């Protein structure tokens, strides 16, 4: 049975999820407030799908069929019959809560409401609805079509049936799902904190330089990238924000404490690759 997926927000994450869902036989209703955001989203999907055809991951016919399955929508009410609606709007709790309240009102009672949040509590977002048992976290990773992981996040009220259906959806779109209870940073953003946090401390304490720490982590540990290269790639500001968010949500547990070096880098405008200057120069 082919699923009908609603996606709210046609930015990077929303478009990425639409791409993968459509390629795996789902009908996709892609919603955004602005026509042109949807258009740009679909353009991006088209570009990425073409690369997939070039790399012979799928045929041109499959690409065309996938694009046909994506329907642009500018009215939320059009998502009422979706099996799952996935929210991928900006990381702002009030915006998300307001959206879930609206979705709760328009969606059919069997529709699952999913959030792609990386930093907010699923339970908190679900509290804006009258049926929190159908709210779940589906945390995708960027770029969605290349990263094969989805964290399926169980909120305080999420039902077993909702989790089962979320896992089935993950399977249908070819992703590996992991189950996680609603806690700050879920699995990945939490367990990865010491990779950056200890590296920053080692640097601050003068145990080794940026270059040496990266070299050691790769050549002695077998990691593909060192912590400083990776912070430069992610964006030092983005990484700092995630660290602060996890730290605050754990009520300032010292394991997650951000490092002053991060703050100084952000304040000096050295944000990594995107500003051509970070821990390295580009």
């Amino acid at each position: 049975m082919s699923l009908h997926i609603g996606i709210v927000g046609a930015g990077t994450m929303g478009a990425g999820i639409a791409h993968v869902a459509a390629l795996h036989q789902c009908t996709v209703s892609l919603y955004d407030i602005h026509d042109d955001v949807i258009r740009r989203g679909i353009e991006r999907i088209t570009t990425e799908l073409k690369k997939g055809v070039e790399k012979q991951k799928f045929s041109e016919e499959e690409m065309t069929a996938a694009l046909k399955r994506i329907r642009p929508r500018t009215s939320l009410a059009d998502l009422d019959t979706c099996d799952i609606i996935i929210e991928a709007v900006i990381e702002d709790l009030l915006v998300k809560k307001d959206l879930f309240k609206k979705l709760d009102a328009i969606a059919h009672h069997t529709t699952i409401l999913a959030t792609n949040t990386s930093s907010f509590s699923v339970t908190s977002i679900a509290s804006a609805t009258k049926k929190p048992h159908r709210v779940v976290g589906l945390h995708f990773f960027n770029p969605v079509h290349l990263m094969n992981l989805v964290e399926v996040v169980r909120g305080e009220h999420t039902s077993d049936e909702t989790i089962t259906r979320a896992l089935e959806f993950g399977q249908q779109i070819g992703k590996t799902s992991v189950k996680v209870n609603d806690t700050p940073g879920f699995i990945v953003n939490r367990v990865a904190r010491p990779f950056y946090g200890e590296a920053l401390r080692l640097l601050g304490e003068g145990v080794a330089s940026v270059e040496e720490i990266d070299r050691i982590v790769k050549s002695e540990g077998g990691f593909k990238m060192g912590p400083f290269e990776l912070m430069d790639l992610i964006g030092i500001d983005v990484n700092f924000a995630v660290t602060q968010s996890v730290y605050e949500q754990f009520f300032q547990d010292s394991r997650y404490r951000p490092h002053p070096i991060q703050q100084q880098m952000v304040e000096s405008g050295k944000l990594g690759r995107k500003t051509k200057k970070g821990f390295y120069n580009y």
Partner: protein
Amino acid sequence: MKAKTSRKPARRKNVESVHPKIKHGGFSTILIVGDDALVAEYSAAASAHNFHILPPEKIRSISTLAKNISLAVELSNLNIEQKRKNLASLDAALPATTAILSSSVTVSVLEQAQWIKLRHRLAGIAALPSLLENSLVEVAPSVDTLEATMEVVKKFFDSLGKEIAIVQDRIGMVLPRILCQIINEAMFAVHTNIASPNDIDTAMKLGTNYPLGPIEWGEKIGFDHVHAVLNALFNDMHEERYRTCPLLKQLAVTGKFWSK
């Protein structure tokens, strides 16, 4: 951001210097003592490169063998009292020209140097089970370590086909400190029932490209060694940040693995 320049090994005259007795391409005799897993790993790597290995039990007859020994390697992370005894025996029996390499992830090189008379011959290495599979070894001098001692270290790892990185003498050094903290965090996630060990391993491999999941990595290293590093960091810094997850501690004490 640059770290302070590495502390240079001391140059001292009037001290009988360590002699670089390691021959390139091996064929030298080395004595390896310490924790079983590490002794096995270092012995296998050195034998594969033509070194003649004296097993740990030879430490008792060391005085008769002393002249033939080019290098001694002490690899105890778990039992610090035993490490102290081993280092004292090695120091007493070996000629002043023989270097001693010692694992320094659970006790600093400087502290270990206080246990022996000839401090200049001691250098620290980041020895943790399974890390020798990879291509780089971290090395740390103490303030007393002579440059000639560091030359021996470099020559030894050169012979094993490993590059070295010289870091400051701090408990946990670089990779063991980062890695043990990642494993600790993953164990806290298991302990507080946030996700299953398998799902945590899967998430870290697929979500952040880690070469191994943190739980399976902990099993591979041995939770006893991970706990020893964390405990040493905690005692060194007295920060809650380095407190060992109770579940990890249980696994370290009972020697049991989580699953499989």
